[in-house]
């Protein structure tokens, strides 16, 4: 592949017709959650896009994010992009192994210093000097710091890289941290989810590649295009919530009728993601449509946010224990206070010197 060619030239070289290119642009626009009116602009941008180098680092992760991406519903179109980008390092996908792999990474870094895109999945163990996870003898922490230094931008794919995810869950034995906690001074895009919706990953990559710019981000560094609205607001079960119709168990009448899953612990109201619109498995469905509440996987600390099956309005503590404890304390304190009050009253009564007429009449 010739590095000097634009994406447009590259596609035509592969025999893609102009109609095919427009189709590609239409699909890409949809993928980036951009309105169809943007298709001509996207076409112009893609025509002139230059081939970037991408390094993908995987740390404390389960490969679910990579699975999500590679098994997404539009492999062919995406493969056009991934064929075009130079994915210079990715444990799972690359053919090279061992020293060869590391050498490839270092070569790519050197060659594209300051220009390559760094994608990270998995959290980074930061405790005890990062000894809990190493690759080729290098700690994840060190590798991240080295590679991040020369990156133009970083995309944290998945909740682990974005927010620490499961490795960071209580009691967080490895001191797992997110990329943004460890790397400062670089543009970082968080694409959280466990895993993220494939289209959110490809959409961000496509946008970076085509527009060469970072998308608009929310306060947690997530692209607004995919994480701008909460699940609850776009949920097709929202009308049931409005009417106060809730499934009480997973197999009751309400569950069968598709009523709101709020009471079963759905975290839709506090979760910002595109599941309700983009959906999963070729647009088939998403968790709520399948009958299970949202677990809020694209939010920080979702694992420790009070249990998947507790309604958001329900405090997470052991309320009965709290009440009993407080009542016991009250009983103990009450005995003391009662005794003090009684003593004060008895003292007052004992000290009572009857009021006399003489006293009344003194001046």
């Amino acid at each position, binding site marked *: 592949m010739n590095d000097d060619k634009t994406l447009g030239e590259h596609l035509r070289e592969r025999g893609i017709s102009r109609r095919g290119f427009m189709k590609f642009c239409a699909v890409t626009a949809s993928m980036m959650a951009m309105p169809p009116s943007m298709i001509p602009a996207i076409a112009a941008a893609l025509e002139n896009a230059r081939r970037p180098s991408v390094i993908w680092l995987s740390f404390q992760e389960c490969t679910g994010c990579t699975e999500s991406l590679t098994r997404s519903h539009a492999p062919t179109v995406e493969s056009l992009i991934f064929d075009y980008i130079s994915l210079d390092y990715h444990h799972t996908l690359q053919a090279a192994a061992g020293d060869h792999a590391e050498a490839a990474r270092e070569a790519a870094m050197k060659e594209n210093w300051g220009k390559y895109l760094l994608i990270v999945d998995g959290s980074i163990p930061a405790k005890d000097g990062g000894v809990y996870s190493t690759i080729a003898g290098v700690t994840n922490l060190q590798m991240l710091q080295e590679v991040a230094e020369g990156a133009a931008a970083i995309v944290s794919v998945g909740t682990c890289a974005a927010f620490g995810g499961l490795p960071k869950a209580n009691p967080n034995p490895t001191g797992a941290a997110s990329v943004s906690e460890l790397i400062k001074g670089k543009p970082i895009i968080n694409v959280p989810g466990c895993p993220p919706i494939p289209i959110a990953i490809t959409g961000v990559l496509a946008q970076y590649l085509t527009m060469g710019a970072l998308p608009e981000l929310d306060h947690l560094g997530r692209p607004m295009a995919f994480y701008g609205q909460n699940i609850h607001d776009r949920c097709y079960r929202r009308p049931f919530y409005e009417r106060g119709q809730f499934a009480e168990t997973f197999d009751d009448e309400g569950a069968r009728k598709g009523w709101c899953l709020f009471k079963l612990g759905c975290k839709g109201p506090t979760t910002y993601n595109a599941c309700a619109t983009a959906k999963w498995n070729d647009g088939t469905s998403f968790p709520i449509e399948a009958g299970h509440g949202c677990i809020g996987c694209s939010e920080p600390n979702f694992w420790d946010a009070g249990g998947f099956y507790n309604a958001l309005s329900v405090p997470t503590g052991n309320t009965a224990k709290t009440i009993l404890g407080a009542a016991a304390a009250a009983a103990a304190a009450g005995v003391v206070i009662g005794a003090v009050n009684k003593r*004060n*009253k008895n003292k*007052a*009564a004992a000290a*009572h*010197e009857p*009021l006399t*007429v003489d*006293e*009344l009449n003194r001046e």
Partner: protein
Amino acid sequence: MSAPSVEKGIQFIREQIDAPVASFFSSCVHCGMCAEACLFYGQTGDPRYTPINKVEPMRRIWEREFTLWGRIKGLFGLSRKVTEKDFAEWETLVYDACSLCGRCSLVCPVGNDISGMIRKIREGFSAAGYAPEGLIGATTRAIEIGSPMGVKLPAVQAQIGHLKQDTGLEAPLDQAGAEYMVLLSSMEIMNFPEYMEAVARIMKQAGKTWTISSKAFEATNSGIQIGASDLARELVQRVVDAAEELGVKTVISPECGHAYTAIRWEGPNLIGRAYKFKVQHILEVLDEFRGQGLLKFEGKETAKMTFHDPCQLVRKGGVIKQPRTLLNLVADNFVEMTDHASMNWCCSGGGGVSANERADELKFKAFRQKKSQLDELQVDTLVTACANCRITLEEGLEEYEMDIPVVGLTEMLAEHLVEDKQEEQA
């Protein structure tokens, strides 16, 4: 001399604070409804007269001394001690601007007995030396002479003599074994001698034995009004001793509101035991006689008349139906005031206000409430069953130049008794 008496006042208030008082203060939400029920606030618009504000010193003592929160606030200097200044400032609120009518207690949405608390806080004010002259004088006379107006036994004996002379009716003195012992209020001895005559007639027709005690003829109890339980106890004890010595079955409280409260409700609690006799208001007795068919009435008043409910008898005493039943026996044109029975308006002179000359101006202002009720009805005669109400009403009517005669219900009934002349002659 003043500092220790304030201490005594605070200590007396402390003694009065019990679970009900604590619950009342815990419940108060400062909604201000009690003000809307209050005669004195209603006629002056002065927010200091809001009933719950009248017991503010008591609330502060309760909070400081009987709540954890108050103690914590005290540690940080966030709560003020009740001082001499407070006693001075609240004295008029506690005595002049409250007739203990109890209307506020009935409207309080959380059920606070505010008027009951004002009765209690007066214990501290009298002990601290912050009580009105008039009430101190009345109480002193009651203890030392036997009657707040200074009436002595010879005056009663003279009245008994006049009665015998004028009507031939007997009023037995110190007759052991009589069924009823009749108490009189000094007002009745001095201003309304008709009452004794009425009782004598009624008892005669009903065929009941009765007596007046030379040791305890006085029904009123200034100790209750000034809020000095130690003195009120002594006054109640005199009546109890006399009644038990004479062995009567029932003591009859006269047409006097607070006397009924004193002897009927507070008495046993003051002396610390139940009585060996019953206590009834004269209207209760009359209604009982009527029910038993012992009394026959003739002729009916045609004048338009209404009944002024004495607070202590009606709202706080529960004698509500009896006066109405009895009144209807002898009146053709009996009408009710808009707010009557349990929600009546006080005459403005109850709770010691009428004995407190300092409060006269305020009392007359407050009377405008009764005036407006009467203006609305346009009656010819005002009937009541409390000598204190009666004198307050008469004074108020005079002040506002209204010409409505005020009569006692017992006397009016006595006038309509069927006289058996022959029997009398025989």
